[in-house]
Protein backbone atom coordinates (compact mmCIF):
# COMPACT_ATOMS: atom_id res chain seq x y z
CA UNK A 1 0.00 0.00 0.00
CA UNK A 2 2.33 2.70 -1.19
CA UNK A 3 -0.42 4.89 -2.59
CA UNK A 4 -0.12 8.44 -1.33
CA UNK A 5 -3.83 9.14 -1.45
CA UNK A 6 -6.45 6.68 -0.43
CA UNK A 7 -9.08 7.00 -3.15
CA UNK A 8 -11.51 5.22 -0.84
CA UNK A 9 -11.27 7.90 1.85
CA UNK A 10 -11.22 10.69 -0.72
CA UNK A 11 -14.45 9.46 -2.29
CA UNK A 12 -16.15 9.06 1.09
CA UNK A 13 -15.01 12.48 2.33
CA UNK A 14 -15.92 14.26 -0.88
CA UNK A 15 -19.40 12.74 -0.94
CA UNK A 16 -19.95 13.42 2.76
CA UNK A 17 -19.22 17.12 2.22
CA UNK A 18 -20.87 17.56 -1.17
CA UNK A 19 -24.19 18.82 0.14
CA UNK A 20 -22.45 21.40 2.30
CA UNK A 21 -20.31 22.51 -0.66
CA UNK A 22 -23.34 22.98 -2.87
CA UNK A 23 -25.20 24.90 -0.15
CA UNK A 24 -22.27 27.23 0.44
CA UNK A 25 -21.62 27.79 -3.27
CA UNK A 26 -25.23 28.56 -4.11
CA UNK A 27 -25.73 30.79 -1.05
CA UNK A 28 -22.69 32.90 -1.87
CA UNK A 29 -23.69 33.02 -5.54
CA UNK A 30 -27.10 34.28 -4.41
CA UNK A 31 -25.40 36.90 -2.24
CA UNK A 32 -23.43 38.10 -5.27
CA UNK A 33 -26.63 38.21 -7.32
CA UNK A 34 -28.51 40.29 -4.74
CA UNK A 35 -25.65 42.77 -4.25
CA UNK A 36 -24.80 43.21 -7.92
CA UNK A 37 -28.49 43.65 -8.72
CA UNK A 38 -28.41 46.76 -6.53
CA UNK A 39 -25.42 48.20 -8.39
CA UNK A 40 -27.32 50.05 -11.17
CA UNK A 41 -29.21 52.19 -8.63
CA UNK A 42 -25.98 52.99 -6.74
CA UNK A 43 -24.26 54.02 -9.95
CA UNK A 44 -27.23 56.07 -11.13
CA UNK A 45 -27.10 58.21 -8.01
CA UNK A 46 -23.33 58.54 -8.20
CA UNK A 47 -23.00 62.08 -6.83
CA UNK A 48 -25.49 61.44 -4.00
CA UNK A 49 -23.59 58.28 -3.00
CA UNK A 50 -20.27 60.12 -2.80
CA UNK A 51 -21.79 62.79 -0.55
CA UNK A 52 -23.41 60.16 1.65
CA UNK A 53 -20.16 58.29 2.05
CA UNK A 54 -18.30 61.50 2.86
CA UNK A 55 -20.67 62.16 5.76
CA UNK A 56 -19.91 58.82 7.45
CA UNK A 57 -17.27 58.97 10.18
CA UNK A 58 -14.01 57.61 8.71
CA UNK A 59 -13.66 55.09 11.60
CA UNK A 60 -17.00 53.52 10.70
CA UNK A 61 -16.00 53.22 7.06
CA UNK A 62 -12.72 51.70 8.10
CA UNK A 63 -14.46 49.16 10.32
CA UNK A 64 -16.45 47.97 7.33
CA UNK A 65 -13.40 47.98 5.12
CA UNK A 66 -14.81 50.77 3.00
CA UNK A 67 -12.13 53.43 3.25
CA UNK A 68 -11.62 54.82 -0.26
CA UNK A 69 -14.18 52.48 -1.80
CA UNK A 70 -15.91 54.07 -4.75
CA UNK A 71 -19.27 52.31 -4.98
CA UNK A 72 -20.11 54.01 -8.25
CA UNK A 73 -17.49 52.24 -10.38
CA UNK A 74 -17.94 48.59 -11.30
CA UNK A 75 -14.62 47.52 -9.78
CA UNK A 76 -15.09 49.63 -6.66
CA UNK A 77 -18.52 48.14 -6.11
CA UNK A 78 -17.21 44.64 -6.80
CA UNK A 79 -14.47 45.06 -4.21
CA UNK A 80 -17.19 46.03 -1.70
CA UNK A 81 -19.24 42.91 -2.55
CA UNK A 82 -16.12 40.79 -2.52
CA UNK A 83 -15.56 41.48 1.19
CA UNK A 84 -18.83 39.72 2.02
CA UNK A 85 -17.89 36.87 -0.29
CA UNK A 86 -14.59 36.58 1.55
CA UNK A 87 -16.31 36.52 4.93
CA UNK A 88 -18.57 33.67 3.86
CA UNK A 89 -15.84 31.65 2.16
CA UNK A 90 -13.53 32.15 5.15
CA UNK A 91 -16.17 30.62 7.43
CA UNK A 92 -16.66 27.75 4.99
CA UNK A 93 -12.94 27.00 4.75
CA UNK A 94 -12.39 27.36 8.52
CA UNK A 95 -15.34 25.07 9.16
CA UNK A 96 -13.90 22.38 6.89
CA UNK A 97 -10.48 22.85 8.47
CA UNK A 98 -11.63 22.49 12.06
CA UNK A 99 -13.90 19.59 11.12
CA UNK A 100 -11.43 17.68 8.96
CA UNK A 101 -9.83 15.48 11.59
CA UNK A 102 -11.85 16.35 14.68
CA UNK A 103 -15.09 14.94 13.26
CA UNK A 104 -13.69 11.40 13.50
CA UNK A 105 -12.89 11.89 17.15
CA UNK A 106 -16.15 13.65 17.96
CA UNK A 107 -18.25 11.04 16.19
CA UNK A 108 -15.90 8.39 17.57
CA UNK A 109 -15.18 6.88 14.19
CA UNK A 110 -11.42 7.42 14.42
CA UNK A 111 -10.87 3.91 15.77
CA UNK A 112 -12.65 2.45 12.76
CA UNK A 113 -10.70 4.47 10.21
CA UNK A 114 -7.25 4.28 11.77
CA UNK A 115 -7.33 0.55 12.44
CA UNK A 116 -7.48 0.07 8.67
CA UNK A 117 -4.30 -0.77 6.73
CA UNK A 118 -3.42 2.83 5.89
CA UNK A 119 -0.94 5.39 7.16
CA UNK A 120 -1.93 8.56 8.96
CA UNK A 121 -0.33 10.48 6.09
CA UNK A 122 -2.66 8.77 3.64
CA UNK A 123 -5.66 9.59 5.83
CA UNK A 124 -4.78 13.26 6.22
CA UNK A 125 -3.82 13.71 2.57
CA UNK A 126 -7.03 12.12 1.33
CA UNK A 127 -9.10 14.25 3.70
CA UNK A 128 -7.22 17.40 2.74
CA UNK A 129 -7.60 16.69 -0.98
CA UNK A 130 -11.32 16.06 -0.57
CA UNK A 131 -11.70 19.37 1.28
CA UNK A 132 -9.69 21.13 -1.45
CA UNK A 133 -11.90 19.61 -4.12
CA UNK A 134 -14.92 20.96 -2.25
CA UNK A 135 -13.42 24.43 -1.96
CA UNK A 136 -12.38 24.32 -5.63
CA UNK A 137 -15.91 23.50 -6.64
CA UNK A 138 -17.21 26.39 -4.53
CA UNK A 139 -14.72 28.79 -6.09
CA UNK A 140 -15.65 27.70 -9.60
CA UNK A 141 -19.26 28.64 -8.83
CA UNK A 142 -18.10 31.99 -7.35
CA UNK A 143 -16.11 32.78 -10.52
CA UNK A 144 -19.09 32.03 -12.71
CA UNK A 145 -21.44 34.04 -10.49
CA UNK A 146 -19.06 37.01 -10.26
CA UNK A 147 -18.44 37.34 -13.99
CA UNK A 148 -22.00 36.43 -14.89
CA UNK A 149 -23.81 38.82 -12.55
CA UNK A 150 -21.34 41.69 -12.92
CA UNK A 151 -21.76 41.56 -16.69
CA UNK A 152 -25.50 41.27 -16.29
CA UNK A 153 -25.85 44.40 -14.17
CA UNK A 154 -22.96 46.67 -15.11
CA UNK A 155 -24.78 48.01 -18.19
CA UNK A 156 -22.29 49.91 -20.34
CA UNK A 157 -20.05 50.95 -17.46
CA UNK A 158 -16.46 49.74 -17.93
CA UNK A 159 -14.79 47.04 -15.80
CA UNK A 160 -11.44 45.32 -15.73
CA UNK A 161 -11.92 41.55 -16.28
CA UNK A 162 -8.19 40.87 -15.81
CA UNK A 163 -8.17 42.55 -12.41
CA UNK A 164 -11.38 40.85 -11.40
CA UNK A 165 -9.88 37.46 -12.28
CA UNK A 166 -6.83 38.35 -10.22
CA UNK A 167 -8.98 39.33 -7.23
CA UNK A 168 -10.95 36.08 -7.52
CA UNK A 169 -7.76 34.03 -7.90
CA UNK A 170 -6.74 35.29 -4.47
CA UNK A 171 -9.51 33.16 -3.01
CA UNK A 172 -7.36 30.05 -3.48
CA UNK A 173 -4.74 31.07 -0.96
CA UNK A 174 -7.31 32.98 1.12
CA UNK A 175 -9.41 29.82 1.71
CA UNK A 176 -6.31 27.67 2.13
CA UNK A 177 -5.29 29.97 4.97
CA UNK A 178 -8.48 29.30 6.94
CA UNK A 179 -8.57 25.61 6.02
CA UNK A 180 -5.02 24.86 7.11
CA UNK A 181 -4.96 27.13 10.17
CA UNK A 182 -8.26 25.59 11.31
CA UNK A 183 -6.85 22.11 10.79
CA UNK A 184 -3.65 22.94 12.70
CA UNK A 185 -5.55 24.45 15.65
CA UNK A 186 -7.92 21.47 15.76
CA UNK A 187 -4.87 19.22 16.16
CA UNK A 188 -3.32 21.40 18.86
CA UNK A 189 -6.35 21.13 21.14
CA UNK A 190 -7.51 17.93 22.76
CA UNK A 191 -11.06 18.11 21.49
CA UNK A 192 -13.00 20.45 19.21
CA UNK A 193 -16.45 20.53 20.77
CA UNK A 194 -18.08 23.05 18.46
CA UNK A 195 -16.64 23.44 14.98
CA UNK A 196 -18.93 26.41 14.28
CA UNK A 197 -17.71 28.26 17.35
CA UNK A 198 -14.05 27.75 16.45
CA UNK A 199 -14.61 28.65 12.80
CA UNK A 200 -16.49 31.87 13.59
CA UNK A 201 -13.95 32.84 16.25
CA UNK A 202 -11.07 32.43 13.80
CA UNK A 203 -12.77 34.29 10.96
CA UNK A 204 -14.14 37.16 13.06
CA UNK A 205 -10.84 37.39 14.91
CA UNK A 206 -8.96 37.72 11.64
CA UNK A 207 -11.52 40.15 10.24
CA UNK A 208 -11.45 42.50 13.24
CA UNK A 209 -7.68 42.30 13.38
CA UNK A 210 -7.71 43.85 9.91
CA UNK A 211 -10.51 46.29 10.64
CA UNK A 212 -8.90 47.29 13.93
CA UNK A 213 -5.59 48.11 12.26
CA UNK A 214 -7.52 50.20 9.72
CA UNK A 215 -9.18 52.21 12.49
CA UNK A 216 -6.07 52.75 14.56
CA UNK A 217 -3.76 52.96 11.57
CA UNK A 218 -1.55 50.32 13.14
CA UNK A 219 0.14 48.50 10.28
CA UNK A 220 1.85 45.74 12.27
CA UNK A 221 -1.26 43.73 13.12
CA UNK A 222 -2.71 43.82 9.65
CA UNK A 223 0.24 41.82 8.39
CA UNK A 224 -1.20 38.79 10.16
CA UNK A 225 -4.64 38.65 8.59
CA UNK A 226 -5.51 37.33 5.13
CA UNK A 227 -8.28 39.93 4.96
CA UNK A 228 -5.45 42.43 4.45
CA UNK A 229 -3.31 40.15 2.31
CA UNK A 230 -6.27 39.85 -0.04
CA UNK A 231 -7.78 43.33 0.25
CA UNK A 232 -9.81 43.73 -2.94
CA UNK A 233 -10.30 47.49 -2.44
CA UNK A 234 -6.55 47.87 -2.21
CA UNK A 235 -6.12 45.67 -5.28
CA UNK A 236 -8.49 47.94 -7.24
CA UNK A 237 -6.40 50.99 -6.33
CA UNK A 238 -3.02 49.38 -7.00
CA UNK A 239 -3.91 47.06 -9.86
CA UNK A 240 -3.29 43.90 -7.81
CA UNK A 241 -2.55 42.41 -4.41
CA UNK A 242 0.61 43.31 -2.51
CA UNK A 243 2.82 40.32 -3.29
CA UNK A 244 4.81 40.52 -0.07
CA UNK A 245 1.57 40.30 1.93
CA UNK A 246 0.30 37.42 -0.20
CA UNK A 247 3.52 35.58 0.55
CA UNK A 248 2.83 35.89 4.28
CA UNK A 249 -0.43 34.01 3.72
CA UNK A 250 1.38 31.42 1.62
CA UNK A 251 3.97 30.98 4.37
CA UNK A 252 1.25 30.50 6.99
CA UNK A 253 -0.44 27.88 4.78
CA UNK A 254 2.82 25.98 4.35
CA UNK A 255 3.65 26.10 8.06
CA UNK A 256 0.11 25.15 9.15
CA UNK A 257 0.05 22.24 6.69
CA UNK A 258 3.43 20.84 7.67
CA UNK A 259 2.60 21.38 11.33
CA UNK A 260 -0.69 19.53 10.93
CA UNK A 261 1.00 16.49 9.41
CA UNK A 262 3.54 16.49 12.20
CA UNK A 263 0.86 16.72 14.88
CA UNK A 264 -1.45 14.17 13.28
CA UNK A 265 1.29 11.58 12.78
CA UNK A 266 2.08 11.72 16.49
CA UNK A 267 -1.44 12.13 17.79
CA UNK A 268 -2.84 9.77 20.42
CA UNK A 269 -6.38 9.10 19.35
CA UNK A 270 -8.65 9.66 22.39
CA UNK A 271 -10.52 6.60 23.64
CA UNK A 272 -14.10 6.11 22.66
CA UNK A 273 -15.15 4.79 26.04
Amino acid at each position, binding site marked *: MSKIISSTIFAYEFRARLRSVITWALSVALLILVYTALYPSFAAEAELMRQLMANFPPELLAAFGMTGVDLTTVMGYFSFVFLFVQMALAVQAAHYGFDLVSVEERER*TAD*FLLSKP*ITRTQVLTAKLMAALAGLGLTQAVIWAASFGFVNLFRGDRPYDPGLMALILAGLVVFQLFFLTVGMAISLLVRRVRSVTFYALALVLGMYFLGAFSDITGDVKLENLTPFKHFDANDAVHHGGYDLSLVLISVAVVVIATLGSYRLYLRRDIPTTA
Partner: protein
Amino acid sequence: MNIALEADKLTKYYGKSRGIIDVSFQIKEGELFGFIGPNGAGKSTTIRLFLGLIYPTSGSAKIFGKDAIRHGPELRQHIGYLPSEVFYYDNMRVIDLLKYSASFYRHDCTDRIYKLADYMELELNRRIEDLSYGNKKKVGIVQGLLHRPRLLFLDEPTSGLDPLMQRKFFDLIRQENAQGVTVFFSSHILSEVQRLCNRVGIIREGRIVEIADIRTLQQNNYKKIRIYSTQTNDLHLNLSGIANFERSDSYVQFLYKGDINAIIKKLSEIDLTDIIIEEPTLEEIFMHYYE
Protein backbone atom coordinates in the same frame (compact mmCIF):
# COMPACT_ATOMS: atom_id res chain seq x y z
CA MET B 1 4.99 -21.99 16.78
CA ASN B 2 5.54 -18.42 15.78
CA ILE B 3 4.87 -15.53 18.09
CA ALA B 4 1.84 -13.53 17.02
CA LEU B 5 1.92 -10.81 19.65
CA GLU B 6 4.74 -9.62 21.81
CA ALA B 7 4.78 -6.78 24.30
CA ASP B 8 8.11 -5.87 25.82
CA LYS B 9 8.02 -3.53 28.82
CA LEU B 10 5.24 -1.70 27.04
CA THR B 11 4.46 1.52 28.90
CA LYS B 12 1.97 4.27 28.20
CA TYR B 13 1.34 7.45 30.13
CA TYR B 14 -1.32 9.95 29.12
CA GLY B 15 0.44 13.06 30.30
CA LYS B 16 0.96 12.18 33.94
CA SER B 17 -1.87 9.70 34.28
CA ARG B 18 -1.13 6.02 34.07
CA GLY B 19 -2.10 3.91 31.08
CA ILE B 20 -0.05 0.74 31.40
CA ILE B 21 3.37 0.12 32.98
CA ASP B 22 5.97 -2.44 31.92
CA VAL B 23 3.52 -4.79 30.29
CA SER B 24 5.28 -7.82 28.82
CA PHE B 25 3.79 -10.95 27.32
CA GLN B 26 4.03 -13.26 24.34
CA ILE B 27 1.14 -14.84 22.52
CA LYS B 28 1.68 -17.63 20.04
CA GLU B 29 -0.03 -17.85 16.70
CA GLY B 30 -3.31 -19.68 17.01
CA GLU B 31 -3.77 -18.92 20.68
CA LEU B 32 -7.02 -17.75 22.22
CA PHE B 33 -5.70 -15.38 24.84
CA GLY B 34 -7.90 -13.83 27.49
CA PHE B 35 -6.97 -10.44 28.88
CA ILE B 36 -8.70 -9.80 32.15
CA GLY B 37 -8.90 -6.86 34.44
CA PRO B 38 -11.32 -4.43 36.01
CA ASN B 39 -12.43 -1.35 34.11
CA GLY B 40 -9.65 1.19 33.75
CA ALA B 41 -6.91 -1.38 34.31
CA GLY B 42 -5.35 -0.75 30.90
CA LYS B 43 -6.93 -3.38 28.65
CA SER B 44 -8.02 -0.97 25.93
CA THR B 45 -4.76 0.96 26.20
CA THR B 46 -2.83 -2.25 25.46
CA ILE B 47 -4.96 -3.07 22.42
CA ARG B 48 -4.85 0.49 21.09
CA LEU B 49 -1.05 0.48 21.35
CA PHE B 50 -0.90 -2.66 19.21
CA LEU B 51 -3.20 -1.02 16.66
CA GLY B 52 -1.14 2.17 16.46
CA LEU B 53 -4.04 4.33 17.60
CA ILE B 54 -1.83 5.60 20.39
CA TYR B 55 1.94 5.57 20.72
CA PRO B 56 3.93 3.97 23.53
CA THR B 57 5.80 6.11 26.04
CA SER B 58 8.44 3.36 26.15
CA GLY B 59 8.85 -0.31 25.40
CA SER B 60 7.78 -2.07 22.24
CA ALA B 61 4.85 -3.90 20.72
CA LYS B 62 5.40 -6.46 17.98
CA ILE B 63 2.93 -8.25 15.77
CA PHE B 64 4.09 -11.30 13.79
CA GLY B 65 7.63 -10.25 14.70
CA LYS B 66 7.31 -6.74 13.27
CA ASP B 67 7.12 -3.46 15.12
CA ALA B 68 3.47 -2.50 15.49
CA ILE B 69 4.08 1.18 14.85
CA ARG B 70 6.62 1.10 12.05
CA HIS B 71 4.92 -1.68 10.11
CA GLY B 72 1.42 -0.72 11.29
CA PRO B 73 -0.25 -0.18 7.92
CA GLU B 74 0.84 -3.50 6.36
CA LEU B 75 0.22 -5.39 9.61
CA ARG B 76 -3.31 -4.02 9.88
CA GLN B 77 -4.07 -5.74 6.57
CA HIS B 78 -4.24 -8.89 8.72
CA ILE B 79 -5.80 -7.50 11.89
CA GLY B 80 -9.44 -7.40 12.84
CA TYR B 81 -10.57 -5.10 15.63
CA LEU B 82 -13.80 -4.94 17.54
CA PRO B 83 -13.73 -1.93 19.86
CA SER B 84 -15.52 -1.93 23.19
CA GLU B 85 -17.87 0.80 22.03
CA VAL B 86 -18.83 0.70 18.39
CA PHE B 87 -19.37 3.93 16.52
CA TYR B 88 -19.78 4.26 12.80
CA TYR B 89 -20.81 6.93 10.33
CA ASP B 90 -24.41 7.39 11.34
CA ASN B 91 -25.82 8.41 7.98
CA MET B 92 -24.52 5.31 6.19
CA ARG B 93 -26.43 2.14 5.60
CA VAL B 94 -24.95 -1.01 7.11
CA ILE B 95 -23.99 -2.47 3.74
CA ASP B 96 -22.34 0.79 2.64
CA LEU B 97 -20.29 0.91 5.80
CA LEU B 98 -19.21 -2.71 5.39
CA LYS B 99 -18.27 -2.11 1.76
CA TYR B 100 -16.37 1.03 2.76
CA SER B 101 -14.56 -1.05 5.35
CA ALA B 102 -13.85 -3.82 2.80
CA SER B 103 -12.46 -1.33 0.29
CA PHE B 104 -9.38 -0.86 2.46
CA TYR B 105 -8.29 -4.47 2.02
CA ARG B 106 -6.56 -6.05 -0.92
CA HIS B 107 -8.89 -8.94 -1.59
CA ASP B 108 -12.59 -9.03 -2.32
CA CYS B 109 -14.67 -9.49 0.83
CA THR B 110 -18.18 -9.34 -0.63
CA ASP B 111 -19.07 -13.03 -0.14
CA ARG B 112 -17.81 -13.00 3.36
CA ILE B 113 -19.84 -9.87 4.26
CA TYR B 114 -23.07 -11.59 3.27
CA LYS B 115 -22.15 -14.83 5.01
CA LEU B 116 -21.23 -13.13 8.26
CA ALA B 117 -24.24 -10.82 8.20
CA ASP B 118 -26.50 -13.78 7.58
CA TYR B 119 -24.92 -15.72 10.42
CA MET B 120 -25.16 -12.81 12.86
CA GLU B 121 -28.70 -11.99 11.67
CA LEU B 122 -27.73 -8.47 10.70
CA GLU B 123 -30.01 -6.44 8.44
CA LEU B 124 -27.85 -4.84 5.80
CA ASN B 125 -30.16 -2.16 4.49
CA ARG B 126 -30.82 -0.27 7.68
CA ARG B 127 -29.16 3.00 8.55
CA ILE B 128 -26.50 2.86 11.24
CA GLU B 129 -28.21 5.59 13.28
CA ASP B 130 -31.41 3.52 13.50
CA LEU B 131 -29.66 0.49 14.96
CA SER B 132 -29.89 -0.60 18.57
CA TYR B 133 -26.68 -0.96 20.53
CA GLY B 134 -26.69 -4.72 20.11
CA ASN B 135 -27.14 -4.41 16.35
CA LYS B 136 -24.31 -1.90 16.13
CA LYS B 137 -22.19 -4.45 17.92
CA LYS B 138 -23.10 -6.98 15.22
CA VAL B 139 -21.95 -4.50 12.57
CA GLY B 140 -18.71 -4.30 14.54
CA ILE B 141 -18.31 -8.06 14.53
CA VAL B 142 -18.87 -8.37 10.77
CA GLN B 143 -16.64 -5.36 10.17
CA GLY B 144 -13.87 -6.89 12.26
CA LEU B 145 -13.98 -10.25 10.50
CA LEU B 146 -14.87 -9.50 6.89
CA HIS B 147 -11.29 -9.37 5.62
CA ARG B 148 -10.34 -12.75 7.12
CA PRO B 149 -7.79 -11.37 9.58
CA ARG B 150 -5.06 -13.61 11.01
CA LEU B 151 -5.24 -11.76 14.30
CA LEU B 152 -8.31 -10.54 16.15
CA PHE B 153 -8.51 -7.94 18.89
CA LEU B 154 -11.78 -8.18 20.75
CA ASP B 155 -12.25 -5.47 23.35
CA GLU B 156 -15.14 -6.35 25.65
CA PRO B 157 -16.96 -7.82 22.67
CA THR B 158 -20.06 -9.24 24.30
CA SER B 159 -21.57 -6.17 25.94
CA GLY B 160 -24.90 -5.43 24.30
CA LEU B 161 -25.31 -8.89 22.78
CA ASP B 162 -28.14 -11.07 24.06
CA PRO B 163 -27.16 -14.53 25.37
CA LEU B 164 -28.16 -16.28 22.16
CA MET B 165 -26.03 -13.93 20.06
CA GLN B 166 -23.19 -14.22 22.54
CA ARG B 167 -23.18 -17.95 21.99
CA LYS B 168 -23.25 -17.59 18.22
CA PHE B 169 -20.45 -15.07 18.47
CA PHE B 170 -18.36 -17.40 20.64
CA ASP B 171 -18.93 -20.22 18.17
CA LEU B 172 -17.80 -17.92 15.39
CA ILE B 173 -14.65 -17.00 17.29
CA ARG B 174 -13.94 -20.66 17.97
CA GLN B 175 -14.33 -21.47 14.27
CA GLU B 176 -11.95 -18.69 13.35
CA ASN B 177 -9.50 -19.85 15.97
CA ALA B 178 -9.73 -23.44 14.71
CA GLN B 179 -8.57 -22.11 11.34
CA GLY B 180 -5.48 -20.63 12.95
CA VAL B 181 -6.63 -17.11 13.81
CA THR B 182 -4.97 -15.70 16.90
CA VAL B 183 -7.45 -14.08 19.26
CA PHE B 184 -6.76 -11.46 21.90
CA PHE B 185 -9.89 -11.29 23.98
CA SER B 186 -10.20 -8.55 26.57
CA SER B 187 -12.93 -8.67 29.16
CA HIS B 188 -13.78 -7.92 32.73
CA ILE B 189 -16.19 -10.86 32.78
CA LEU B 190 -14.13 -13.84 33.84
CA SER B 191 -16.68 -16.53 33.13
CA GLU B 192 -16.79 -15.73 29.42
CA VAL B 193 -13.01 -15.79 29.20
CA GLN B 194 -13.09 -19.11 31.02
CA ARG B 195 -15.47 -20.48 28.40
CA LEU B 196 -13.40 -19.35 25.45
CA CYS B 197 -9.72 -18.96 26.18
CA ASN B 198 -6.77 -21.28 26.82
CA ARG B 199 -4.52 -18.76 28.48
CA VAL B 200 -5.12 -15.59 30.41
CA GLY B 201 -3.25 -12.50 31.43
CA ILE B 202 -4.51 -10.49 34.34
CA ILE B 203 -3.94 -6.77 34.40
CA ARG B 204 -4.53 -4.54 37.36
CA GLU B 205 -3.79 -0.84 37.68
CA GLY B 206 -1.76 -0.93 34.49
CA ARG B 207 0.47 -3.84 35.43
CA ILE B 208 0.36 -7.53 34.52
CA VAL B 209 -0.12 -9.46 37.74
CA GLU B 210 -0.32 -12.96 36.33
CA ILE B 211 -0.14 -14.83 33.06
CA ALA B 212 -1.16 -18.45 33.19
CA ASP B 213 -2.83 -21.37 31.55
CA ILE B 214 -6.48 -21.45 32.53
CA ARG B 215 -6.49 -25.16 33.25
CA THR B 216 -3.45 -25.14 35.49
CA LEU B 217 -4.83 -22.17 37.33
CA GLN B 218 -8.10 -23.89 37.93
CA GLN B 219 -7.09 -27.46 38.58
CA ASN B 220 -3.72 -27.47 40.19
CA ASN B 221 -3.63 -24.43 42.30
CA TYR B 222 -6.87 -23.59 44.00
CA LYS B 223 -9.60 -25.48 45.80
CA LYS B 224 -12.75 -23.88 46.98
CA ILE B 225 -13.55 -25.24 50.41
CA ARG B 226 -16.72 -24.75 52.39
CA ILE B 227 -17.17 -26.37 55.79
CA TYR B 228 -20.28 -26.53 57.92
CA SER B 229 -19.69 -26.79 61.61
CA THR B 230 -20.97 -25.58 64.95
CA GLN B 231 -17.39 -24.95 66.02
CA THR B 232 -16.24 -22.56 63.31
CA ASN B 233 -15.07 -20.15 65.98
CA ASP B 234 -12.54 -22.70 67.19
CA LEU B 235 -11.03 -22.99 63.75
CA HIS B 236 -7.71 -21.15 63.43
CA LEU B 237 -6.56 -21.27 59.84
CA ASN B 238 -3.06 -19.91 60.23
CA LEU B 239 -1.92 -21.51 56.98
CA SER B 240 -0.55 -19.61 54.03
CA GLY B 241 -2.41 -19.86 50.72
CA ILE B 242 -5.83 -18.98 52.02
CA ALA B 243 -7.80 -16.35 50.17
CA ASN B 244 -11.31 -14.92 49.93
CA PHE B 245 -12.07 -15.98 53.47
CA GLU B 246 -15.75 -15.71 54.39
CA ARG B 247 -17.38 -16.62 57.67
CA SER B 248 -21.07 -16.88 58.43
CA ASP B 249 -23.05 -18.37 61.32
CA SER B 250 -23.17 -21.87 59.94
CA TYR B 251 -20.20 -22.14 57.61
CA VAL B 252 -16.74 -20.99 56.64
CA GLN B 253 -15.65 -20.68 53.04
CA PHE B 254 -12.30 -19.91 51.43
CA LEU B 255 -9.97 -20.63 48.55
CA TYR B 256 -6.93 -22.71 49.34
CA LYS B 257 -3.71 -23.05 47.40
CA GLY B 258 -1.07 -25.37 48.83
CA ASP B 259 -0.52 -28.79 50.38
CA ILE B 260 -3.90 -30.46 50.57
CA ASN B 261 -2.81 -32.65 53.54
CA ALA B 262 -2.02 -29.64 55.65
CA ILE B 263 -5.48 -28.20 55.27
CA ILE B 264 -7.22 -31.52 55.85
CA LYS B 265 -5.24 -31.99 59.07
CA LYS B 266 -6.29 -28.52 60.18
CA LEU B 267 -9.93 -29.13 59.39
CA SER B 268 -9.99 -32.41 61.27
CA GLU B 269 -9.31 -30.56 64.51
CA ILE B 270 -12.93 -29.49 64.71
CA ASP B 271 -16.19 -31.37 64.38
CA LEU B 272 -17.61 -30.96 60.88
CA THR B 273 -21.21 -31.44 59.88
CA ASP B 274 -20.47 -31.17 56.17
CA ILE B 275 -17.70 -30.27 53.74
CA ILE B 276 -17.64 -29.24 50.08
CA ILE B 277 -14.39 -29.12 48.13
CA GLU B 278 -14.66 -27.99 44.53
CA GLU B 279 -12.90 -26.33 41.61
CA PRO B 280 -13.32 -22.62 41.93
CA THR B 281 -14.47 -20.49 39.00
CA LEU B 282 -12.00 -18.03 37.55
CA GLU B 283 -14.09 -15.31 39.07
CA GLU B 284 -13.36 -16.65 42.52
CA ILE B 285 -9.69 -17.24 41.82
CA PHE B 286 -9.11 -13.74 40.64
CA MET B 287 -11.31 -11.94 43.10
CA HIS B 288 -8.31 -10.95 45.16
CA TYR B 289 -6.72 -9.25 42.15
CA TYR B 290 -9.75 -7.03 41.97
CA GLU B 291 -9.76 -5.98 45.59
